[in-house]
């Protein structure tokens, strides 16, 4: 059996942190993606411009640089805000900008931009007749969005969401660099202390491989379900 030199429990906890991080970032990314896609498809020029700036900026900057910026910069901003609130209103407000929060914000923002493109394409794939019919039935804009657009675009968005999720999962490894004790961090410390790099990194690599392979199967299954009743052109 694999002997992890007593680092087994720590690695397990690290794996849980990685998974939590991935799911929270995914939730943020999906929310941002929906907002971004709606903004891009809206008639307001300001909203369109803002969404386009967002996706363009995100695609130009490496994930690690953005993470370092949010982690180190975020704390400076919080400190400044805290000073200001105390001086102006005597409100005692402070929080520590920890690696986990920075990781979720950064990964959520990055993949929010990719999700924006995915959802935009998916919304465009919904037939315009569906929207016209909804409006003819007297649905409000919000109702049309929630009851007609979202359920119908999901089918088109699923493959894109799946790809983004796979990349997101691997990006979570970066958060170990700013000090989050996820499984990569634990493995790194263990590998250095025991001078056995293969011994600790290869199991971690396999955890990632299992996660990506498992997600692949799950997404395939979801895809199949979402496309029930749709004629497939092979």
């Amino acid at each position, binding site marked *: 059996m694999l002997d992890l030199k007593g680092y087994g429990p720590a690695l397990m906890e690290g794996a849980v942190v990685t998974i939590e991080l991935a799911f929270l970032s995914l939730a943020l990314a999906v929310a941002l993606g929906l907002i971004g896609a709606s903004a891009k498809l809206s008639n307001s020029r300001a909203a369109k411009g803002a969404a386009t700036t967002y996706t363009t*900026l995100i*695609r*130009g*900057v*490496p*994930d*690690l*640089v*953005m993470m*370092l*910026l949010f982690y*180190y*910069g975020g704390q*400076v901003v919080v400190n400044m805000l805290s000073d200001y609130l105390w001086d102006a209103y005597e409100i005692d407000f402070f929080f520590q900008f920890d690696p986990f929060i920075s990781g979720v914000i950064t990964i959520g923002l990055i993949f929010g931009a990719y999700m924006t493109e995915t959802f935009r394409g998916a919304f465009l794939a919904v037939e315009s007749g569906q929207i016209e019919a909804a409006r003819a039935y007297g649905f409000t804009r919000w109702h049309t969005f929630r009851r007609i657009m979202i359920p119908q675009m999901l089918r088109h968005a699923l493959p894109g969401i799946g790809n983004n999720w796979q990349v997101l999962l*691997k*990006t*979570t*490894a*970066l958060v*170990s*660099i700013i000090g989050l004790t996820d499984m*990569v961090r634990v*493995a*790194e410390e263990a*590998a*250095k202390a025991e*001078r*056995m*790099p*293969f011994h600790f*990194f*290869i199991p*971690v*690599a396999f955890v*990632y*491989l299992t996660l*990506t*392979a498992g997600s692949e199967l799950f997404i395939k299954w979801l895809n199949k379900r979402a496309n029930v009743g749709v004629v497939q052109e092979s």
Partner: protein
Amino acid sequence: MPDFIAQWLNQNDIFTAMTIMEYWDGLVTTVHLVFLSLVIGLVVAVPLAIMRTVRNPLVSGPVWLYTYLFRGTPLLIQLYIIYYGLAQIEGIQETFWWEIFREPFYPALLAFTLNTAAYTTEIIRGAIVSTPHGEIEAAKAYGMNWFLRMRRIVLPSAARRAVQAYSNEVIFMLHASAIASVVTIVDLTGAARNIYSRFYAPFDAFLFVALLYMLLTFALVFAFRKLENHLLKHQRPLSS
């Protein structure tokens, strides 16, 4: 130079000639690392992609396993395994390889190359597999053998279909190269981290480097768009 920039530079403690030189060296390292890994990766990926399309599972299987492993795990883990792992190989410190792999640059180059080669292999494989049947049949009818067909018909045609996906891979690699700073390489990100820790000025250090990466990215996007237009000229609708 406009006055306000000159004034700003004069009052500035951070962006002095010395730090600008540090950023410049970092830029050179980043470009060097990314360019080399992409070129070597592409050269390795073409034969691998061809092997991957071969019917014999003994040929295509190992390549599939390689791409699956390298695409299914984070690049950071691959970098750690190679960087920390190479030094642990029994007896490597006595061979001449140690002279090469003692520097962090070469382990990082190896990790990046293996990673990008795996992704590129799959991109090229996809392009090869989607070659229209007619093109291959026509080549066969002309009596071309397998090698000639590959060289003159399949690969050029696949290259056109692969350019767009490959341009994404190039940008992905440029961004992924930022993790080289983790193994003590002073690339662009490494320079920014050094300058951050010296002045405790996160915005100056990281926003500036983000801007540099952005410029590099947009230059690449522009170059690839030109290349794509050039390669797909024959498919452009005639303007009336």
